[in-house]
């Protein structure tokens, strides 16, 4: 828990006064809800029946054998409903908003996973849902837009600023400032002004609590826990039960992108490019220009492509409790292919960063201790990004022929086959 909104020197409530009241009211409601047995019971039921918790702690036996060194385990958050850990927070906050008497939920989304989870939670809890999404992100994340709309959410294209995640955040904040009487802003990561970092960690900490039990049940001696870190909601939830267990190493994998040059990655903690800053309502480590403008970031994984990091993770990093490492796009893709091939598990591109660092650490660790990865999401959502990487020709032929079919209005049974393509398709 934060100390009045702060984690060491990070955190705080750096918001304009127009947002102060909703933020303060939310803080009060959250503190009450976490003491309320009825709320906690309802949450538990939703976690079990709607989200599908607990998610398994799975022994990746083949991958461990191929890799050598310590056994590798995977916490399968990607099996949660809607395909990622995001749903833990979305359901929790939506339930909290409902208890506060709110009837409308707004959220920002970049890659679309948080928007998707929020839309599903709102459908389940009968709340009106509007998702702000940058026009550029709508363009590159169509499948998630489709799913959100199926869940009854309205997806609002943000055309201001750079038309990406940060502009969606601004637009959502603006909406909230005007409409907080009936509206809750359901933020997606463990960042933003207090109390959001505490709220998001609270709802994500179910990952760490389950893991602690599963480690005991399976009688494992843990060397390291590995999570990817964008804003950091999966990481803080995964690590939450282990912060005081100092014998366990906590490893955060940041987006190394194309490499260490400026603007080619989203490395806030393990490099030297980031500095203390105040952005989006909180103080943390940010990638900023000399003047304090937000710097460009780059990663193949949309979920890690963010210039800041949740304040609690920044604090734990600066006191060296969490070790941060940069994983490049290339390393993440290799890990993705490795686990798919040996385990039949397709990681989300974000989570593949955690997979990559775990493979390295396991190699250097004796066999009597284990390394655990948080697979924060599964990779189905990434096919428009990863498929062009792994099989560019086949993918291009597929998209072209699908477009032709739609234009001609043909049923799939009547469309011409792809076999004229140069691919090695199954025959």
């Amino acid at each position, binding site marked *: 828990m934060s100390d009045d909104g702060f984690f060491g020197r990070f955190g705080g409530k750096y*918001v304009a006064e127009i947002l102060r009241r909703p933020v303060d009211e939310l803080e009060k409601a959250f503190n009450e809800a976490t003491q309320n047995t009825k709320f906690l019971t309802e949450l538990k039921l939703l976690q079990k029946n709607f989200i599908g918790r607990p998610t398994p702690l799975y022994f990746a036996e083949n991958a461990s054998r191929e890799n050598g060194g310590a056994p590798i385990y995977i916490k399968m958050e990607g099996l949660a409903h809607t395909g990622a850990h995001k749903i833990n927070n979305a359901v929790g906050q939506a339930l909290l908003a409902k208890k506060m008497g709110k009837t409308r939920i707004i959220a920002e989304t970049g890659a679309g996973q948080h928007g998707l989870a929020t839309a599903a939670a709102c459908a389940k809890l009968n709340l009106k849902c509007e998702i702000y999404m940058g026009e550029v992100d709508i363009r590159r994340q169509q499948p998630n837009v489709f799913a959100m709309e199926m869940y009854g959410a309205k997806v609002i294209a943000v055309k201001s600023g750079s038309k990406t995640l940060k502009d969606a955040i601004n637009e959502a904040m603006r909406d909230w400032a005007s409409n907080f009487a009936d509206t809750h802003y359901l933020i997606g990561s463990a960042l933003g002004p207090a109390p959001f970092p505490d709220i998001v960690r609270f709802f994500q900490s179910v990952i760490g609590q389950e893991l602690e039990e599963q480690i005991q049940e399976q009688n494992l001696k843990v060397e390291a826990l590995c999570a990817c870190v964008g804003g950091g909601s999966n990481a803080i939830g995964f690590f939450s039960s282990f912060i005081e267990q100092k014998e366990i190493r906590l490893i955060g994998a940041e987006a190394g992108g194309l490499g260490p040059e400026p603007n080619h990655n989203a490395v806030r903690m393990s490099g030297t490019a980031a500095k203390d*800053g105040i952005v*989006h309502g909180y103080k943390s480590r940010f990638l900023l220009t000399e*003047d304090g403008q937000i710097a460009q970031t780059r990663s193949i994984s949309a979920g890690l492509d963010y210039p800041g990091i949740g304040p609690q993770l920044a604090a734990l990093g600066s006191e060296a409790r969490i070790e941060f490492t940069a994983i490049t796009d290339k390393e993440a893709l290799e890990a993705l292919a490795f686990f798919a091939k040996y385990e039949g598990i397709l990681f989300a591109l974000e989570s593949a960063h955690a997979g990559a660092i775990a493979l390295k650490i396991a190699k250097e660790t004796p066999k009597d201790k284990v390394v655990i990865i948080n697979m924060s999401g599964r990779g189905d959502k990434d096919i428009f990004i990863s498929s062009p990487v792994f099989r560019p020709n086949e993918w291009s032929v597929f998209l072209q022929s699908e477009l032709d079919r739609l234009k001609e209005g043909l049923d799939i049974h009547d469309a011409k086959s792809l076999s004229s393509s140069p691919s090695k398709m199954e025959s």
Partner: protein
Amino acid sequence: MHNQNKISLMAHLVAGYPTQNLALKVADALIEGGASYLEIQLPFSDPSADGPVIQTACAKRLELGYSTQEGVDFIKKIHEKHPETPIFLMSYASLVYTPGIENFVTMFKEVGVKGFIIPDLPFDNDEGMRAACEKEGLTFVPVAAPSMSVDRIEKLLSYDFEFIYAALRAGITGSKTTIEKETLQFLNYFSKSPSKILGGFGIQNAEQAFQLKDFVHSIVAGSVFVKKIIQEYEKNPQDAEDKIVNATREKAKELSHTH
């Protein structure tokens, strides 16, 4: 203190937008039109307390690049030409905090800035902003909002600020403001305080300005000017200068003169 036929107007512009030179002409036009104060916004990529109009202007300027030093140079030129018009710098915490708050304040003091409006530095957790301003004989202007709790308004008043910027609509700048009872109630909280009230956010026309004038030290208008600049400039940049200068001057005249 003010001419009876004149409403004190704080006119807002985005530094360097659409271009450094054209923005200087906008400053001239606003002052010629009757602005008593200028609020100059140093563009930041994520202006969370601004509406889409000002956000767009900031983003467009930043696409071309805009350094804090260019902002300093911009203000220097305006202050040299119009030393009688107090200039307030508006921006966001990231640009203030990153170079070091004292450095930031000193940089702008040297070119004639009188005060700073930084909406995401809360008055009770300002990172030393007020102290840094006062050390240099400058003023830090907190932003108040009608949604503030009474306790928080009282806390704000107990800080005895020279100016308070009152955001008159619950939402963000640039939406249409009708001056409602609630707004006037909110302003009443401040009427007994010695702080000078700058009342802004959403003022579009003379009627609104006139309704507000007795409740505030100065009205603030921003997006109404910026919208005109965007319209003209994005339509045809070559041909925009005269139109922008005329439109902003006439709007400033409309808002600052009683009829």
